[in-house]
């Protein structure tokens, strides 16, 4: 089936099998491998992208469902060589170690800060419930989101 969508501002028209998951469209077809796959039960959030302004788990969206949508992935976050405040804050605060959960974590935080620009620590921890990090114990991720909230 032919679908058209915009990813990081660039329009694409591609032919996909209806069963193809959005995350595989991004990774295997569009070669945008920044978005990762960490589980198969929609728990880990590593595959989170922004779809029409909202954070979604791209492993639980069919590519055909994304037909016509506007997608933002980690690759599209920095603008004109300037890191997004969230990227900068994750770097400053050591909010990542192995980095595998990081793209999804940052994209969820991006949505979280759009709906709640000044979250408390508890709100951040609840907001990131759908993203699993095994390295950081979340301590520095929370700091990073707090710093980003201040900068944004």
């Amino acid at each position, binding site marked *: 089936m032919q679908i058209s969508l915009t990813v990081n501002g660039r329009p694409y028209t591609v032919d996909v099998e*209806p*069963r193809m*998951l959005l995350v595989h469209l991004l990774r295997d077809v569009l070669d945008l491998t920044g978005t990762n796959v960490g589980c198969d039960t929609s728990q880990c959030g590593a595959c989170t992208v922004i779809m029409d302004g909202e*954070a979604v788990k791209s*492993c639980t969206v*069919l590519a055909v469902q994304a037909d016509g949508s506007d997608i933002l992935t980690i690759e599209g976050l920095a603008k004109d060589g300037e890191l997004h405040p969230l990227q900068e804050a994750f770097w400053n605060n050591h909010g990542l170690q192995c980095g595998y959960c990081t793209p999804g974590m940052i994209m*969820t935080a991006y949505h979280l800060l759009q709906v709640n620009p000044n979250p408390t620590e508890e709100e951040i921890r609840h907001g990131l*419930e*759908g993203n699993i990090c095994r390295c950081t114990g979340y301590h520095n991720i929370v700091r990073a989101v707090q710093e980003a909230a201040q900068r944004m």
Partner: protein
Amino acid sequence: MYPPKFDYYRASSVDEALSLLQQHGANAKVLAGGHSLIPMMKMRLAQPGVLIDIGRIDELKGIRVEGDTLSIGPLTTHAAIAASEDVQRLATALSDAASVVGDLQVRNRGTIGGNLAHADPASDLPAAVLALGGEIEARGPAGSRTIAADDFFQGLFTTALDENEIITAIRVPTGQGTRVSAYVKFPHPASGYAVVGVAAVLDIAGNKVTTARVAANGAFECAKRLAGVEQALSGADATAEAAASAAEHATDGFSADDFMSDIFASADYRAHLLKVYTRRALQKALERA
């Protein structure tokens, strides 16, 4: 992780969706947000030959206040329900429940219609809709009909919905006088689903509870009313103490076999939790009075 092959149809109207359903029969599944169905397909626990995507049908979206009824389109996401001031004000238990489904990303895609049709026993919305005395409007080849939430949830992943019907609206009466409600849950630490979740809806006049509707999910094979609690509260004082003593009746009328049991929570622990969370739901509702 990799769904099996299927044929995909995108319906642009309810009529088109219904005719596709007619055409493909039991081989077809309706796709809304996909947050119940796609995970099942990824595990290959569901292998429908045909998917009928209703996700773009505008008539199935939105939240409207119609007199003393709140009407919610089945494609409304959990996030939209949780954020709706109308729902917060008129059906607080549903707002509570929608705000604790899964996680932020799941709430952005999952829909109330898909959620109710899937009828996962540990899902959050069924108890809220049931306690609020909601109705599910469904349309099939024979036309529309309205199913009371009391009749809708029939068992494990089983509803009163016919195979060729689609939910077209969820209606919740907003009540007269002072109606307060709340939903609280004990989430499973891994899945986030409700080990036990309780919705309480109380109509209050003066210092008395005139009517109580209380329902639970997580505890049973599907969402169920807690008749013992409702009876104990009817005419009772609208106080935390009365709520606590009514909550002790949460398991009345149920036998040990009625309770779900798994490695995380046994049937008798769930029965105990049901009392604890019933008390918390009632008290939270009363705090809003």
